[in-house]
């Protein structure tokens, strides 16, 4: 049996915290004054949104580093961060819609932040599609990094959208604007989703590195076949 790595430790810690935070949010935290029990989905929705923003920021950081140094390791981390961003956005949007139906009366509203989040998801999914179309590893790394930097400029529009346009979306909460009993499960779940995201990025970048090594190992054989 293989020994547990620090990456697996992050995953176990993340899932453990997620169960703890969610149980606290569902049973111990007080219901929100206006929305009642419906608002408890926020204990998943909001940490997912935070981690999505963080994962996209990691992707931006790795993109800059990958472009600057040209080292393949940073491209592996970039690929992992991009996938984490897309997965978190895919989780965030439906959880927001489930929250929106009883509170706003509709599953979807063309509110700027909702629209921007969907745009962000499509944007990062497009970069993954670009990546899938490029076979040459060096070119794939450079173009992924360039597309990520270009796309990241959209993220501030998502985060600050609600402040700039003032729409139907709730203004972001802070510890001062919510009940004391809500803060702890929120914080626990925020760290839980963050640890799971970091675990996912670490594992995914390991797989990406392995795939790249396999591609490079297969190269002489392919050249030999082409020459023959």
């Amino acid at each position, binding site marked *: 049996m293989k020994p547990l790595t620090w990456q697996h430790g992050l995953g176990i810690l993340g899932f453990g915290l997620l169960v703890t935070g969610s149980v606290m949010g569902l049973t111990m935290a007080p219901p929100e004054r206006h929305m009642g029990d419906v608002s408890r989905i926020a204990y998943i929705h909001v940490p997912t949104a935070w981690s999505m923003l963080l994962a996209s920021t990691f992707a931006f950081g790795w993109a800059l580093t990958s*472009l600057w140094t040209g080292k393949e390791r940073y491209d592996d981390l970039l690929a992992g961060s991009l996938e984490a961003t897309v997965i978190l956005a895919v989780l965030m949007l439906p959880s927001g819609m489930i929250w929106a139906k009883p509170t706003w009366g509709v599953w979807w509203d063309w509110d*700027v932040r909702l*629209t*921007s989040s969907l*745009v*962000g998801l*499509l*944007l990062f999914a*497009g*970069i993954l*599609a*670009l990546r899938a*179309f*490029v076979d*040459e590893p*060096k*070119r794939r790394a*450079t*173009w992924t*990094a*360039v*597309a990520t*930097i*270009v*796309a990241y*400029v*959209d993220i501030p*529009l998502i985060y600050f959208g609600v402040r700039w346009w003032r729409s139907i979306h709730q203004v972001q909460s802070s510890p001062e604007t919510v009940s004391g009993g809500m803060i702890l499960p929120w914080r626990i779940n925020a760290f839980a989703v963050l640890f799971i995201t970091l675990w996912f990025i670490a594992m995914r970048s390991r797989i990406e590195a392995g795939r790249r090594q396999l591609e490079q190992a297969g190269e002489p054989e392919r050249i030999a076949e082409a020459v023959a």
Partner: protein
Amino acid sequence: MIVRQLVALLGKDLRLEWRRRARLLVVFVFGAMTLLLFSFALPETEMLVRASGGLLVLALLLSSTLGLAESFRVEHEDRALEGLFLLPVEPVAVYYSKAVANTLFLLALGPVLAPAALILYSVQVESGAIADFALIWTLAAAGLAAPGTLYSGMTSRMRGQDVLLPLLLFPLVGPLLLASVKSLNLVILGDPMDQLGSWRNLLIAFDVIYWSIGGVLYPFVCEEGT
């Protein structure tokens, strides 16, 4: 040095466009056709008038992909782009000449699409609003051209370029489309709350950001072979 190269390359790009002017005509007809097709989805004249700004911007966006996709594809014939880099021409000059040529190409769509929309959608615009309209159209065209040229440079030799370019470009220009649609609607329908300025500033910010980023990143893109 770079400015001289830029001017020479821009002259070359514009001459190329002029010599392939049949393609320009195709894009103009395509843009006008999209305006006609939109009217099938919105049969009421009142609805068409209210949505006219958005429909114009969408016609510009859809037409832009035809022009942007071609801008680098032509450079691969006889390995012209490689020849340019061997001269040597600065990659930044190549990027900005293409981006300016694409902006001018999209600007040229304005005098065709705007009158077509005025007639087809029964839109009445005050003569005083034409300057605002032209400014918004210019900012929208420049905003589409900057990232569009960068992505076109990346995807021009890839399998699946026709799918990838819109897939990458359309979500990226989301904020630009939103600001252009709002601005054009304010110009066409009136601006009693004086909101045009803030949307115009957003367009300017988008243009400044992407024109700067494009110039910085294109040398990396072409280093890996466009």
